[in-house]
């Protein structure tokens, strides 16, 4: 298990190196660039040339890349040119990362808490009206674009429910400890700050949760349907066990492998969803920075944020793979 984990982490280093090189090259192939973004259309050739030189963009890509690697090794990922010009890319990441993690965490939590029980119930009532209705609902969940739903929630639901229509901003005067608004309130005893942060999170989290919810629901339903037909469930029934023991110990434990896999894969979807959700709800997170970064060709910030997102994705899926062994003993002994 330990050797497996180490091997996967070594693989991760390789993934990050290859990805950084590809990103480095691809971003420079995009039309425009940080110079045009910073100076505008009417800049003189001389000023453009000066800035190009200042940013080091006049050198061959491969030279730029190795310089970047050298500085990155000492924790210097360059300076932002577009998102927050002048700030270091690392500072931007550290400032914005907690908001996105918080949003994604609550979104996936919501998707799991609603999707898994609903999937179980739908499977249990296969073919009934509840099953049909939730299958249709999940199709709508997948089909409705995140940004559309986000605007509906922001403009209509927020007024109707009396919830804030924007995300919690960084400038609110609560004590910052970890950068996670919900966590900081609990740590410092400012529970009203936590409550406030949660209120700000509800609508964006719903918007972001719809697609993962729909996917988790479908996978849970299919997995439970398979397990309900298994002989060991019939054995459990023949023992006269209570319905809740059969559900937890026999049906759900055996349905969890595909569901956990899906949850891991959905973390990728969460990030792309976060770009849209953060933009609509004005949440100062990584997703918002990525959106602005692309518009303004902020190479250092884009590079760092995408690599960090990749690391999060790979680590989450590593945790998912490790959890297989906890769920299924047959994988443990292999």
């Amino acid at each position, binding site marked *: 298990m330990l050797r497996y984990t180490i091997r996967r982490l070594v693989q991760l280093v390789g993934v990050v190196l290859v990805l950084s090189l590809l990103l480095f090259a691809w971003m420079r192939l995009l039309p425009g660039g940080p110079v045009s973004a910073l100076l505008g259309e009417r800049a003189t050739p001389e000023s453009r040339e000066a800035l190009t030189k200042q940013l080091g963009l006049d050198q061959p890509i491969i030279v730029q890349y190795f310089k970047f690697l050298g500085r990155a090794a000492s924790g210097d990922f360059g300076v932002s040119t577009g998102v927050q010009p002048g700030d270091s890319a690392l500072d931007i990441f550290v400032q914005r990362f907690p908001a996105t993690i918080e949003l994604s965490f609550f979104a996936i939590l919501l998707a799991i808490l609603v999707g898994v029980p609903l999937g179980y119930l739908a499977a249990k009532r296969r073919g009934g009206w509840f099953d049909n209705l939730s299958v249709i609902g999940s199709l709508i969940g997948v089909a409705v674009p995140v940004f559309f739903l986000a605007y509906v929630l922001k403009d209509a639901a927020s007024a109707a429910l009396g919830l804030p229509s924007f995300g919690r901003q960084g400038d609110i005067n609560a004590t910052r400890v970890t950068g996670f608004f919900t966590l900081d309130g609990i740590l410092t005893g400012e529970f009203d700050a936590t409550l406030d942060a949660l209120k700000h999170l509800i609508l964006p989290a719903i918007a972001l949760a719809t697609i993962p919810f729909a996917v988790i629901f479908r996978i849970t339903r299919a997995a439970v349907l398979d397990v309900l037909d298994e002989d060991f469930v019939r*054995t*459990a029934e023949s023992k006269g066990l209570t319905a809740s023991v059969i559900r937890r110990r026999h049906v759900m434990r055996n349905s969890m492998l595909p569901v956990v896999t899906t949850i891991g894969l959905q973390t990728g979807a969460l990030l792309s969803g976060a770009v849209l959700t953060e933009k609509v709800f004005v949440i100062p997170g990584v997703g918002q920075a990525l959106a602005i970064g692309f518009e303004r060709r902020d190479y250092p910030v884009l590079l760092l944020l995408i690599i960090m997102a990749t690391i999060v994705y790979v680590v989450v899926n590593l945790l998912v793979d490790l959890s297989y062994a906890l769920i299924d003993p047959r994988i443990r002994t292999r």
Partner: protein
Amino acid sequence: MALLEVRDLTVVFQRRGEEPFRAVDGVSFDVEPGQTVGLVGESGCGKSVTSLAIMGLLPKRGATVTGTVTYDGTDLLKLSDKQMRDKRGSELGMVFQDPLSSLNPVIPIGLQVTEVLERHRGLARKEAMIEAKNLLDKVGIPDPNRRLKEYPHQLSGGMRQRALIAIALACRPKLLIADEPTTALDVTIQAQILSLMKELVQDLGTALVMITHDLGVVAGLCDEVNVLYGGKVVEKANRHPLFAEPRHPYTHGLLASIPRLDAAPGEKLTPIRGSVADNIPWTQGCAFAPRCPNALDVCVQVTPAEEDQLGRLLRCHNPVVPGTPAAEEVPV
């Protein structure tokens, strides 16, 4: 009074857009305390559905069960879901065909034994573990303490079936239903499991309903045998007369299709022609008629009634005359 009285048990499966299918059609039999009764027939004859109906394990939707299943004076078919859960595992035990798929792959054997003890005998986990160890010991699983912590895939096929038997007998049920308990096992293991079951039901005084297609199992174990065909009992007799003088052509055919060690070399087996798929509905005559060597014109016109012939029940217009050798040879 019999421990279990099954009367006119009928199970009709109804799927949307399909004709209703009578999997079990008016089956009746009694099981006395401590007695072993066999339900015998090919796959599709309704023997497993009968056992699931008795245990209340058929799906709620799509299966209609009628008749009565009187256990110890109460009709099981009239009990609520909760009342049935109290009976299953405590008074009614069941052993299934495939021991690997019948055990939960992701929880240890120990928990699969203790959960039934906790549920019905109110034991705490610790006491239940001690009891589980004794149970595994009793069914002949070596090193039970280690096996309790292991998972089904770590046990051999025979050991898994022993574990399932331990689970079914954990609360000393008065009635045990075994649905083809040896079919998935090696021949050598089959004999071990059968003698274990025989020993245990004798020790505990448990009545046993043995469901099988294997007449060897019947010969070694059952006091009374019900031969099922197309969801109906076609012949019911005690073991000795049934084997000595099978009267229904189907029973006769089943016995004749067993390979015999004393057959002359080169002698062909005599299988029963056709398959269960050739059945005609019982409403139009005898379901076995299309495959029957003794079939008369009346067999496809009039449904044969159940007749009592000297203590044996027979459903046939033209039974086999005692002493008839195996049916005419059919090329395989």
